[in-house]
């Protein structure tokens, strides 16, 4: 049981594979239906569409992070850097260069992804706690650049003066109101989730899991583990950057807070809370985290304590996160 039941590798290769696959397929269908219907049922339970967009965006960022954290075994404390770079990329493109939302999102994703791809090889030279330290340092570097470079980034006050533009498709124009934008985020989420799923079920993904499980052994086998960790780092950076870009589009605003290590910490909490060995763990984590931030903060000033408490309890009692807990229950 060293490789968890829920990891995609076992899910796709074990003998009852056909059954699990179809069960998983059914689960995906139900999830898709629930997510597609959000604008219809969320207002009935006191939510609002922008909140659902925020959940998906944070879930996407945490899923990107989770490729590195849960599947490759690299604890990054600096993923807000790529998230924030994606956001600034989108903001600056829309403000100065283009009126195309899609082009801006592409540029933001590339900016953050490129940074992750270039910095990955430096970060992976160390492992364990030193790996984490370097990711924090690099993340904070971008934070301070954004704070200091007033003329470009707007400094501490953040970048304003851009907004998401309507998307013109052949035959139809999306005005990009709250609901349109939610479906746009959902589409991006779906594409990224599918790609991540494909990667995790390809030999590349199996290598990531193998590195997590036994790094030394893979080194002895002659596999260049650093290279694979760097690839994992780059992919997870790209996904985080795309999430960041969507976040900037949601708010029509971005600030250095998006680059700060506290946000990296939030992503980690989301991934761990939901279940980091589980593909949809970060989505569950994001739902819990954002809902708590939104609702508990209206009830008590000490909402941060509640989140902290839930986090501590979940780490002590369900170390595999919420989804991990339910999976273990159903398999036993």
């Amino acid at each position, binding site marked *: 049981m060293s490789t968890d039941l829920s990891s995609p590798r076992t899910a796709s290769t074990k003998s009852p594979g056909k059954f699990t696959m179809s069960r998983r397929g059914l689960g995906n269908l139900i999830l898709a239906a629930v997510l597609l219907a959000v604008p219809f049922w969320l207002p009935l339970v006191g939510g609002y569409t922008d909140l659902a967009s925020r959940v998906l965006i944070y879930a996407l960022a945490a899923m990107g992070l989770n490729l590195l954290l849960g599947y490759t075994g690299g604890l990054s404390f600096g993923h807000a850097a790529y998230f924030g770079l994606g956001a600034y990329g989108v903001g600056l493109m829309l403000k100065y260069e283009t009126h195309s939302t899609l082009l801006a999102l592409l540029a933001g994703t590339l900016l953050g992804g490129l940074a992750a791809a270039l910095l990955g090889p430096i970060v992976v030279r160390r492992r364990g706690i030193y790996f984490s330290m370097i990711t924090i340092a690099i993340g904070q570097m971008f934070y301070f650049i954004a704070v200091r470079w007033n003329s470009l980034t707007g400094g501490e006050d953040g970048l304003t003066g851009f907004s998401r533009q309507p998307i013109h498709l052949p035959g139809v124009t999306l005005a990009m109101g709250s609901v349109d934008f939610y479906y746009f985020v959902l589409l991006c989420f779906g594409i990224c989730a599918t790609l991540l799923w494909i990667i995790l079920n390809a030999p590349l993904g199996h290598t990531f899991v193998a590195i997590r499980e036994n790094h030394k052994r893979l080194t002895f086998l002659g596999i260049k583990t650093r290279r694979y960790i760097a690839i994992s780092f780059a992919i997870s950076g790209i996904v985080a950057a795309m999430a960041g870009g969507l976040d900037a589009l949601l708010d029509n605003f971005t600030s250095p*807070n998006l680059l700060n290590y506290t946000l990296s910490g939030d992503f980690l909490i989301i991934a761990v809370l939901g279940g980091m060995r589980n593909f949809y763990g970060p989505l569950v984590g994001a739902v819990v985290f954002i809902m708590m931030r939104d609702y508990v903060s*209206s009830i008590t000033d000490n909402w941060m304590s509640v989140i902290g408490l839930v986090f501590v309890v979940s780490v002590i009692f369900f170390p595999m996160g919420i989804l991990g807990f339910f999976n273990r229950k159903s398999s036993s």
Partner: protein
Amino acid sequence: MNDSQSGNFDRRGLLKAGAAAGLAGLVATPKPTWAVSETPIKIGMVDPITSTFAPLGHSEIKGAKFAEAEINKAGGIMSRPLQLLVEDGAGNPGTSLDKAARLVSRDKIDFLMGTVNSASSLALSQFADKHNLLFIATGGHVDSLTGTNCRWNTFRTCSTTWMLTSGDFETLFKKFGKSWYFITTDYAFGHAEQADYTTQLKKAGGTVAGGALAPVGTTDFSSYLIDVKAKKPKVLCLLLVGDDQVNCMKQIAQFGIDKEIAVGGALFELEQARALPEAARYGWWTMEWYWNQPNTPHVAAFVKAYAAQYNGEYPSARSWFGYASTYAIKLAVERAQSTDTMKVVKAMEGLVLPPEVALQPNAPAYRAADHQLLLSMFPGHVIQTGKYPNLFDVSAIVPGAQLALPPAAAGCKMTYPA
């Protein structure tokens, strides 16, 4: 006949008596009971309840709630009750936007106000514009909010950075001298303050003796202070924030600099003064409002009622921002006789706060051209041995109109949606 007459009389009398009783009831009831059909006018307020800005946010919320209670006690707005919905923005623009979105889509607010820090103010101003809402920034000082980034829907109750610096510039310059040294926080707000002071200093014929940019979170200021001692300026201008300011002021006292050189700066808040240890209570600063105004009508009564409501806590400038902003919305709605955003915006342009709301001399008004409230500034010095709430000695109340840059110079070009 008699019977019928008396019957008539009785019925009419009964009707009359009923009407009279009803009228009397309407007039005499001190606390109106709202009819079920009366939908409240809703003001959403996003302010930090948590984070480093929390003490300031709490004061603004208390001020606004105090105004809400007063307004409802006096009959509401256009005989509709006022409802204030407060959400925690945590001083973070992203969280503030989330909360604003929630207030708009779930609570269907009519007006939006709040924020302590500039970043959140700018973000909410843009958000409110998108959602066709009137927004009153209660506490973000960045010049551009009513300058280059001014918007048709956004008004500001607190002062601009420029007003803060010019508020006590004259006092410091005339009283202490021409050569100045700056220790400034190394980020946008600090830079803006220093630039504003330097412009005024050069215009008045002064010189900059030196300057140091201290990164946020600096704890050891001794290297800067040695330089200050060597340069011997007349005025040491501190443009620091929060704990940095406290640390620096303690070290200045240890170096004995405050005995030789006048120490001063821009913004100072009652909340901050209260938190300072006695050793660090000195210097010349600007308050944006102060509770001790013996010569201004209505102030003493307000302070007394406020302190009674909040267990002896005195109103600060932040409390007044919340109070005045809430009243400004009431006054503008009544002037417009509507809650339509554009009509209320038009009614608020040029709106003069009446003395019982202004609680200061000089009749502050929201300037039509850039939507900036021209409030007075209260330069003065900190009383070192003072006990709360007697911590500040106001040396002058300077009219805002005299301090604020003209709208054209501030860079505001107001455009309205078609």
